[in-house]
């Protein structure tokens, strides 16, 4: 991949988001939960950039930050060289960055007809006038491979796959440049998810979109993505091109992730039974309640840990086109 030649779309620089948590109402000690901690990466135009990680690693918070749905604690996000600020009307970023949510059952307004759902973002952004809404949404539905008759239906009349198509059509109605896909197929059935993936790939080619693809399914990553970004405990563990990642990841956590896929090969499942023993005692590490946490986030579960990792925090180091957050890659 000659990523160097492509213009960069998204440049995230030392971004952090901390949440405060209170033990109880009368407990004034506050815990800081570092949901996203000192994260930096770049997304280039036309790429599919995938973020992988287990539940609670901060990948959804990161997508919220990109969309401006929560405020950042520190750090900067640049979109094509400009600081990401949704309040500036001049940039009109809502038109350029859109999201497809995970659950198609809860992300559509059940009281509105499909054409209203699909056309509302376009009307608000003054792409079309209100009287053209019907015509426009018919055209949008055609783009995502749905019948035109669906414009008069309500969301409850549609199946899961059709709803996910509707939410994709809604996101595309403002002609965005960057699409954040927050686990778009994990709520869907096998054959339906194949349809949606095909649709996403078609749209990516046709409209020259850039995707930030958030998932926990590495099978999809291998199939779709250009770059893999592995997150754990709010930090980036490894960023590498897809081919190199699947040939042999450098970070110990990426190796664990890769081993845990139940691919089409016989595998002794029983070896994973003990995974829990560690998990129970260190359940907080996932969420990143960081009191004594000076060292590496992954220290307690790591297979390659050394004394150095307890007190020193590794940084994301460049190693060719692979970036690894480990002292001993």
């Amino acid at each position: 991949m000659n990523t160097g030649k492509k213009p960069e779309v998204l440049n995230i620089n030392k971004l952090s988001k901390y949440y405060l948590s209170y033990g109880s109402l009368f407990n004034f000690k506050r815990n800081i939960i570092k949901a996203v901690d000192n994260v930096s990466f770049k997304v280039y135009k036309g790429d599919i950039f995938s973020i992988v990680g287990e539940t609670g690693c901060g990948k959804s918070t990161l997508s919220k930050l990109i969309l401006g749905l929560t405020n950042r604690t520190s750090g900067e996000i640049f979109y094509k060289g400009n600081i990401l600020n949704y309040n500036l009307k001049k940039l009109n970023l809502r038109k350029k960055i859109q999201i497809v949510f995970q659950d198609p059952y809860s992300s559509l307004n059940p009281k509105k007809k499909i054409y209203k759902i699909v056309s509302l973002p376009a009307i608000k952004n003054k792409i079309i006038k209100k009287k053209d809404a019907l015509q426009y949404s018919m055209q949008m539905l055609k783009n995502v491979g749905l019948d035109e008759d669906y414009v008069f239906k309500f969301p409850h009349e549609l199946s899961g796959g059709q709803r996910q198509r509707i939410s994709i059509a809604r996101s595309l109605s403002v002609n965005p440049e960057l699409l954040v896909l927050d686990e778009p197929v994990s709520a869907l059935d096998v054959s339906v998810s194949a349809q949606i993936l095909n649709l996403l790939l078609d749209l990516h080619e046709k409209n020259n979109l850039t995707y930030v693809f958030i998932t926990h399914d590495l099978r999809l990553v291998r199939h779709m993505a250009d770059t893999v970004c592995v997150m754990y405990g709010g930090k980036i563990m490894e960023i590498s091109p897809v081919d190199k990642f699947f040939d042999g990841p450098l970070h110990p956590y990426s190796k664990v992730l890769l081993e845990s896929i139940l691919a089409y090969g016989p595998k002794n499942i029983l070896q994973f039974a003990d995974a829990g023993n560690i998990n129970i005692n260190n359940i907080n590490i996932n969420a990143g309640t960081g009191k004594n946490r000076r060292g590496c986030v992954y220290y307690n579960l790591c297979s390659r840990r050394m004394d150095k990792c307890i007190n020193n925090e590794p940084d994301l180091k460049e190693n060719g086109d692979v970036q690894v957050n480990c002292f001993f890659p």
Partner: protein
Amino acid sequence: MSLIIDNLTVKLYTNFKKKEFFNVADSVSFSIQNGEIISVVGESGSGKSFLGLSLMRLNPPYISEISSGSILISDTDGFEKIDIVKLKENQLSDVRGRLISMIFQDPNVSLNPVIKIGDQIIEAILAHKKMKKKDASDVAIHYLELMRIDGKARFNSYPHELSGGMRQRVMIAMAMVLEPVVLVADEPTTALDVKTSLQVLALIEKMRFEKNVSVLFITHDLSIARNISDKTIVFYAGQIMEYGTTEDIINSPLHPYSISLTKSVPALSKDYAPRERLFVIPGSLSQSDFKSEKCRFYNRCFKRSKDCLNEIPLLKLSSERFARCVNIQ
């Protein structure tokens, strides 16, 4: 043989007054041996969950009934043989939990939120055995520890204090606490993360080895079925489409539906080039398929011919291989 299902047919009424119905399970017969895991794979809506519920007679009353067939369950010693279909309503609670028990899909919903998990487990023991409450709690703690949960510390916690994976493990502990002969697992890992779902699978596998329980594992993920089960049933529109050892079904599927299912998963093996469009089964499963006189997969099949217009019996290909298709060489 711990469970023998013979010709099980379950009616589901669409209109009870007019006696309109279709068969959600249509003359299903198979058997599970001691310590064997059989997985049932199929799309959502194919009736596989209903099959699991019917085995415990948990299918919703008034709108559905078991019209024919038998579910013969026998003790590990072969001492006790019971036909679940013939039992009366008040006799059922004796069998449920003691001989056959179930793990449900969503651990967030299936635990009572206002009762401590320890008490929920004890309830099952005390309902079946005359035991002191303290002894029962020792048993419960033992099973929680088998599930890699710190039994003594977690005994008095409420479900909301546990993570999703832990809740599902509590569910397994609850199902296993009376050492049943058969365990029905209805998509136990769909609501879970990659790593936690692996652990849950590993613990089910462990129960199989240690307690010699037979498992009917309902799933839609072929890669899970590939790793956990000895035999696989491919289920579509209430009928067994193909039945055989898991290795045969995954590596050399014969029925067009099994072929389509295996193709539509982006596997880690290099079947698909990156970004190649996935195979999609055309159309969708509808209610009318359950009533159709033809082969039930006829409308979506890529191998269909004139012979498919009649009802097709389950053909025996070898001693362990059955398929419901006439176009198999």
